[in-house]
């Protein structure tokens, strides 16, 4: 297991180099002089020369790339052109916000999706099965922004049960430690605040989690149906096991392998910045951070944002690969 993880980590190196090459190219693929583009048409020659100097644009490409890599290895993502702040520290709260939202969205997607899939497979062709699969079909097909707006309209506007936007009550902001607000409020032992923050999470989590939930439900169902036909399930039944043990122990562990793949990919997609959801719910996540940077042509931020998202995606895939090995002892690399 340990050697496997080490080998898998070594395999990451070429992937990471490829990623940095792409993000590095972003700045240099801008048509014309990057400094000119960044400063705009009215910039003086002197200003452009200054910016080229500070960005190191007058060095040869490989020297620039080497410096970029060295900076990255030291955790230096560069400086935002707009706020003049270090991106590496500026981006952290955004990552935390996205992480928190993704966590709860996937929690919703996995719990509801996997169980709906299991029960659908268990009671194949029952009314539950038809209803769940209809719901899943609607879930996959529904535009996220529409669902988000409907949620806001029904649960925030009309019923007034849940807050429509933001991560917390803005009149009473939290003293952030980890920037994961649920965790922060628990560290402060402030349970009332934790409750408020959880309430803020419900609507965006459901909006964001609905598509993954539907995909997971469909995948779990088909995978379970496949596994339930296998010989070893018949053996378990011949041993005298109850249906619950058959399904939740023997069938589920075998059926989870393709489902875990889907969960990993979907988590990656969500972490990659759910721009629509984050915009509608005014959620200060990575997606919004990069989106705003694009509006301001803040190239270092775009570059770093993409790099961070790609890095998280790769890490999730690593985690999924390790999980495979846990699920299926036959897997060898």
């Amino acid at each position, binding site marked *: 297991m340990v050697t496997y993880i080490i080998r898998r980590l070594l395999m990451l190196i070429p992937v990471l180099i490829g990623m940095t090459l792409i993000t590095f190219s972003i700045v240099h693929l801008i048509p014309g002089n990057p400094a000119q583009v960044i400063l705009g048409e009215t910039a003086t020659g002197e200003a452009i020369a200054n910016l080229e100097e500070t960005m190191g644009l007058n060095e040869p490409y490989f020297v620039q790339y080497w410096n970029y890599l060295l900076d990255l290895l030291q955790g230096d993502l560069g400086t935002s052109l707009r706020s003049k702040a270090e991106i590496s520290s500026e981006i952290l709260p955004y990552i935390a916000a996205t992480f928190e939202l993704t966590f709860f969205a996937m929690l919703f997607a996995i719990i509801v999706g996997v169980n709906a899939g299991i029960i659908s497979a268990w009671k194949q062709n029952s009314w539950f099965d038809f209803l769940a699969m209809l719901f899943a079909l609607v879930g996959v097909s529904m535009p996220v922004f529409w669902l988000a707006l409907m949620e806001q309209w029904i649960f925030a506007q009309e019923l007034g049960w849940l807050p429509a936007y933001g991560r917390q009550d803005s009149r009473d902001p939290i003293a952030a430690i980890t920037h994961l607000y649920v965790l922060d409020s628990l560290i402060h032992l402030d349970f009332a605040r934790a409750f408020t923050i959880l309430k803020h999470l419900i609507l965006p989590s459901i909006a964001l989690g609905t598509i993954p939930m539907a995909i997971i439900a469909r995948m779990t169902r088909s995978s379970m149906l496949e596994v339930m036909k*296998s010989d070893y399930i018949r*053996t378990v039944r*011949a*041993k*005298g096991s109850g249906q619950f043990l058959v399904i939740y122990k023997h069938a589920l*562990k*075998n059926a989870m392998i393709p489902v875990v793949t889907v969960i990993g990919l979907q988590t990656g997609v969500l972490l990659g910045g759910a721009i629509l959801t984050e915009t509608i719910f005014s959620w200060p996540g990575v997606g919004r951070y990069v989106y705003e940077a694009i509006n301001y042509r803040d190239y270092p931020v775009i570059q770093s944002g993409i790099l961070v998202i790609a890095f998280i995606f790769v890490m999730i895939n690593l985690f999924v690969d390790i999980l495979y090995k846990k*699920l*299926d*002892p036959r897997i060898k690399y």
Partner: protein
Amino acid sequence: MEDVILELSGLSTHFFTDQGEIPAVDKVSFRVHKGEVVGVVGESGSGKSVTSLSILQLIPSPPGKIVSGSIRYKGEDLAKATEKRMKRIRGNEISMIFQEPMTSLNPVFTIGNQMREAIRIHQKISKKAATEKAIQMLKLVGIPRAEDIVNEYPHQLSGGMRQRVMIAMAMSSDPSLLIADEPTTALDVTIQAQILDLMKKINKEEHTSILLITHDLGVVADICDRVVVMYAGQVVEKGTTREILKDPQHPYTQGLIRSLPKLHGREEKLYSIPGTVARPKKDRVGCRFAPRCEFAFERCFKENPELYQLGDGRESRCFLHTEKKGERLEDATTNT
């Protein structure tokens, strides 16, 4: 008889499919006595596996369903038993092993885990005691280094070893009846012999009755006391192994025996029964074997033959027994 462990009478299991109702098992009756090994023989599609799965109510339902008949296990009708009662029977009173040892064990749990589960479903003992029991059972079926094997996964074992594990698991609650559905079909010949020897040993030492499903008459000759021959969902002949092999009465049984390769007397071409097993159909008229039978005459295509009693518990489903008192049949046997 007092010592009847299992008695099937008129068991019919039908599959309800889009193509209509298929009587996969049609009024099958036979008995298994205490300490006896009974073989159920037939080609693929003869309904022998469905019969064995019906006994434990393991047929996939839907589409399969026991439509009539009874399965008396020590007097209790399993065809009418509740699922709750069946859970107590399966793996405890009646155990079952299957054809595919490669796929019959769950690949993602260790041998120990799966054996412990089988033990602890029926016996209220601790996890540690269950592990010890598992190791003891593995040793009983002749698995070397059983202490290590319990921590290994099925894919780390060979086919023969896995079948031994299956048998160990099946025997762990000391059942009265072991149903073995083609237990040696997927194994090498030398391993087959070992597994059959193991089953003989279990039969002799534990006095476990065995119902052996097979298409291999060699296996039958090796281990069975009595034989039930099935064709297209029906029993076509019953008798002791010796009688059936020496003096088969039904044309189908004769065909099966003629198609066995022999060591002496090199034949140019091995005999095979022409055609394939007809798919059981509801409301079929005539003997099911008639289209493939070399002795078939008019009546065979118009009426359904009964099982005729031939004395000494022998039965055969063929009109020849009434028409000519089996005269032609005897001719045919002596020719082979």
